[in-house]
């Protein structure tokens, strides 16, 4: 169970990293960032799970799962959404100046 989650997390993070490294479209870069963020969220939540545990809503039936990573994840999701919105604003602004969403066309950023 845990090993399965860890394999998925590793592959998902590697897919996101591969996207950021290889693709040249900035929208694809945003997709890669989203995938890496999802991998981290999945890692936290699957780490918090205890076999046979119940949701952390009182009164508990049996033992509960770990509630601390849940609150971290909640924070991370909202901040991630704000990050992505800011990235989209930057993309719109860049497209205004460069008429392109391809990283290779942003020549002026090179030194």
């Amino acid at each position, binding site marked *: 169970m845990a090993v399965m989650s860890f394999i998925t997390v590793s592959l998902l993070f590697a897919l996101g990293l591969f996207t950021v490294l290889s*693709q*040249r*479209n900035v929208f694809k870069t945003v997709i890669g960032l989203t995938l890496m963020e999802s991998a981290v969220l999945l890692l936290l939540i699957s780490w918090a799970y205890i076999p046979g545990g119940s949701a952390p809503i009182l009164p508990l039936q049996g033992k509960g799962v770990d509630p601390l990573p849940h609150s971290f994840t909640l924070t991370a999701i909202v901040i991630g959404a704000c990050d992505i919105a800011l990235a989209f604003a930057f993309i719109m602004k860049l497209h205004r100046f460069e008429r*392109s969403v391809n990283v290779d066309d942003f020549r002026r950023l090179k030194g």
Partner: protein
Amino acid sequence: MIPLLRFLGGISIFAGVFFSFAAVVAILRFPDVYTRLHGGTKALSGGAILILLGAMPYAGGVAGALKLFLIAVFFLVSNPMASHAIARACHRRTLANRPIDEKRRDDV
């Protein structure tokens, strides 16, 4: 009473799965926007609503079943609206009878 309801619920879930499968086949096989939309809406108005109604006897109590029923009613209201909006937008842009085979490529 409850076993009978659960049996009927199982039949309903099975019908919903069939509807969803038919929608997938329709989206893959139909040629243009309108027919694909016609097929695609079946996934929600046929599939999801039947599955929700079928899950009602398993929800454990009247309150849970009522919640599922309310979700089904929400789908019943919102899904025709959404597909109507899509169809109208396609009609406006005169995409309607053009087959979707030509591949649109973005700058990747």
